[in-house]
């Protein structure tokens, strides 16, 4: 009788553990994606509503004082045509886990968007909407387009994807040493993890600011419309 009880309890425990693992995988693969897509779309909506409410003609990019970004708040939208025609994600301030589950995260200690220095952004490769799933397909010359509501910034990739180790913080320096840039400029760095489901390495691309245009002039050519 006791043997029976032990065997039955053990079986129930195994079934419970199995169900738990399956549920967790479903959570990672599916549910975090649903939540990230919702949060990302809501964030872009909020930004566009904010931008629609403020006068655009105020001042073009160079004269503008960089607004202090608020941690966890979105301030720009990124478009990467190579990753898909409708690939668009909000960029939020900070790179904490609670920020990155809602979009791309701007390294707080790096330059603001469009300014001299290095505008560095991190994003998930897998889970939470898989924003950077196709990161290895990025090539030199590809456009990375951002808007902050007043200006379109078109960056062009110079180097990458470059594989490095997680401790290599020099990749987000104002002039990243291994990028091939030889002086101060308006740069952009994207970081994500590598391999796809691991965390042993990081993938990096570097880009420089190629063109800016006021939003009143319409979408940049790199976006194809």
């Amino acid at each position, binding site marked *: 009788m006791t043997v029976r009880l032990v065997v039955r309890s053990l079986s129930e425990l195994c079934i419970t553990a199995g169900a738990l693992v399956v549920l967790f995988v479903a*959570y990672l693969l599916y549910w975090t994606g649903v939540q990230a897509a919702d949060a990302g779309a809501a964030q872009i909506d909020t930004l566009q509503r904010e931008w629609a409410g403020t006068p655009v003609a105020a001042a073009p990019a160079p004269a503008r004082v960089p607004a202090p970004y608020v941690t966890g708040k979105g301030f720009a939208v990124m478009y990467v045509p190579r990753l898909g025609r409708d690939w668009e994600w909000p960029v939020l301030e900070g790179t904490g886990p609670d920020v*990155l589950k809602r979009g791309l995260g701007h390294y707080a200690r790096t330059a603001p968007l469009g300014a001299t220095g290095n505008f560095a952004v991190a994003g998930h490769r897998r889970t939470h909407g898989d924003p950077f799933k196709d990161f290895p397909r990025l090539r030199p010359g590809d456009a990375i387009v951002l808007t902050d509501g007043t200006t379109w910034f078109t960056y062009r990739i110079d180097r990458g994807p470059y594989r490095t180790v*997680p401790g290599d913080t020099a990749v987000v320096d104002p002039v990243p040493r291994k990028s091939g840039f030889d002086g101060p400029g308006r740069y952009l760095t994207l970081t994500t993890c590598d391999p796809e*489901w*691991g*965390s042993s390495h990081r993938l990096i691309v570097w880009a420089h600011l190629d063109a800016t245009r006021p939003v009143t002039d319409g979408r940049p050519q790199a976006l194809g419309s």
Partner: protein
Amino acid sequence: MYGWIWRHLPGNAWVRALISIVLVLAVVYVLFQYVFPWAEPLLPFNDVTVDGQ
């Protein structure tokens, strides 16, 4: 364990089945809402930055 729960639920088989479904849904909700978000950072999928955050 499950047998014990089943025996302690009130009502006939249909009522018990209904309560069981509600219990299962409640457990799934707690897992998705609280337990999994807590457990996720312990796994390596979230490390996408270079400064160890």
